[in-house]
């Protein structure tokens, strides 16, 4: 499963030196995931450490203003402030089971870096986080949090965003495959990561579906950078009539503007020029500033089961202000893209008056306050 997806999305396009390491991760996950002991320990960590289940909040004032019922899956209330902790705790457990003593990770907005640094501290593991210099400058609070948690932060050059951070983490992994687990932060990378990370994130969707009760949402919306919160959310609603909507940053819209390609170990859709050189994404949100998208999303887009659209920086900022004022919730800039779609679509054919929309609020916006202040 997931070794390849429709149209050959997915796969494991790695330098040979890393192939055995990725295969070892796959073998370990295939063995661990059905193991009741592994699942019990994971569930216990989610409940007693990460603060799950996270609530489902009905937005009373915003719903009244928009004429649609807006439900928020509150990943901002998970430990470390985003859904990233779900994946990281699972991978840290797996790393320990594999006898690894160190975690490395890439990070864009810093949420995955903070989550990985947190899990490393919890498990007594070493931790190195690769982060682009541009992102380091615009996500200062998370940089300090990682350092406070004992992680080593390695600044990465190039344009200095998420794409460069993934390159650096893959390069670093080559020289320490025997001791180190590469804790990929989204549903990207070589097999088994897109599948494994989706499985670790499906708790978001499973909880939300149960919390919705008998009335399932008409539309389920999530932001998409690599696409892990969307993948985890969608997984629980694929077999329902709900329409699934993924919202990419307008400047990083691999599904809207990209075409099939291979990068970072997987085949999916990527922003690239006519020659196949990968283009830089451009978004106010460091977490969505990625030129590709998880292979499962490329497949869901091709089959039409999910629809993918975009939100501009300005629309995301508007959504931040709107949710703050109407509900007293400060969303991450990433999550604000999903909200921006709701604000724009409410009352149209896409989201008719009286319908119910579930939005995965993937993270909290505290990390973004400097940027929001500057841009507002």
């Amino acid at each position, binding site marked *: 499963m997931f070794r390849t997806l429709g149209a050959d999305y997915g*796969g*494991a*396009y*790695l*330098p*040979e*030196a*890393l*192939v*055995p*390491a990725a295969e070892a991760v796959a073998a370990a996950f295939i063995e661990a995931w059905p193991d009741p002991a592994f699942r019990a320990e994971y569930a216990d960590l989610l409940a007693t450490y990460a603060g799950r289940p996270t609530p489902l909040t009905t937005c009373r004032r915003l719903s009244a203003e928009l004429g649609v019922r807006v439900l928020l899956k509150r990943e901002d209330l998970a430990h470390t402030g985003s859904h990233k902790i779900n994946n990281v705790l699972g991978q840290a457990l797996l790393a320990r089971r594999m006898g690894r003593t160190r975690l490395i990770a890439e990070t864009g907005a810093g949420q995955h870096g903070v989550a990985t640094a947190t899990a490393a501290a919890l498990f007594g593991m070493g931790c190195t986080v690769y982060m682009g210099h541009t992102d380091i400058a615009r996500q200062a609070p998370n940089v300090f949090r990682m350092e406070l948690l004992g992680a080593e932060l390695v600044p990465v050059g*190039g344009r200095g965003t998420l*794409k460069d951070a993934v*390159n650096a983490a*893959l*390069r670093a992994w*080559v*020289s320490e*495959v025997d001791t180190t687990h590469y804790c990929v932060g989204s549903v990207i990378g070589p097999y088994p990561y897109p599948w494994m990370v989706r499985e670790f994130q499906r708790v978001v969707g499973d909880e939300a579906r149960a919390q919705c009760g008998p009335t399932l949402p008409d539309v389920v919306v999530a932001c998409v950078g690599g696409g892990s919160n969307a993948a985890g959310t969608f997984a629980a609603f694929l077999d329902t009539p709900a329409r699934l909507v993924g919202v990419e940053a307008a400047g990083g819209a691999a599904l809207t503007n990209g075409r*099939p*390609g*291979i*990068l*970072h*170990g997987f085949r999916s859709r*990527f922003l*690239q020029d006519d*020659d*196949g*050189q*990968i283009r830089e994404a451009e978004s106010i949100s460091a977490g969505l500033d990625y030129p590709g998208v998880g292979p499962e999303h490329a497949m869901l887009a091709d089959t039409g089961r999910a629809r993918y659209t975009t939100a501009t920086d300005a629309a995301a900022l508007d959504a931040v202000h709107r949710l703050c004022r109407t509900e007293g919730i400060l969303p991450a800039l990433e999550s604000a893209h999903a909200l921006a779609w709701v604000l724009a679509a409410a009352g149209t054919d896409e989201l008719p008056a009286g319908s119910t929309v579930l939005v995965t609020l993937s993270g909290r916006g505290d990390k973004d306050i400097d940027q929001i202040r500057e841009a507002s």
Partner: protein
Amino acid sequence: MILMPYLLAGLTPDWTDLIGAFVDAGADAVEVGLPFSDPVADGPTMQEANAAALARGARPAALLRELPAAPVPIYVSTYANLVQPPDFLDRVAASGARGVVVPDLPVDASATHRAASRERGLHTPLLVAPSTPDDRLRRIAAASTGFLYAVSAMRTTGERASVAAAGIALARRARAVSKVPVLVGFGVSTPDQALALSRHADGVIIGSALMRRVLDGAGVAEVAGLVADVRRALDKASTDKASTDRVRETDPA
């Protein structure tokens, strides 16, 4: 011993001159890289070179058209995303190159590429690494044509102080099962390192050390000087022990 220097196409306006200079300096084959935006198997020197070539406006199709005829085999190397379009291999075939090395296309993902290459008369040298288990190494060696590229260490490309023992061990393992010449690359940058490998491999690939010189502004003659130095060292060693060497077919086809 086969000596295969590497150069990145488009890095300087006179990059094509390097091919002739390498041949004059004693190269038996030349690996010509096409720049990619995200060279994930490469270390700092090659990352800098790839970025510099792209900043100069290098484009793969044009570079392949500019590739000069050479009296030795030329192998193109670049990343999987550039190799994907159906007309890419046609362009490589038209360029006169013998095949394509794709460092992020492992054997499991290479069946389509290998078949398409075979149809066009192109070789598909595959890579093995110190982490490659024996059974997998046999599978890769069986699928590799032209030569087998042995990655000398669990690292990205780049210059090193010495050849890792892991590189020698891999070369020996690879040679035991390979029907094509085993060439060792990644971290081979001096005549001494090439010598250290000469007993265990059929050849060496030198890349970053040469591109470092180009990036530092060295002219064609100076860059090719390193190739000549390595050639001399290898030839001296082979003369010294020629009588005891086992005979092997070592031409990269």
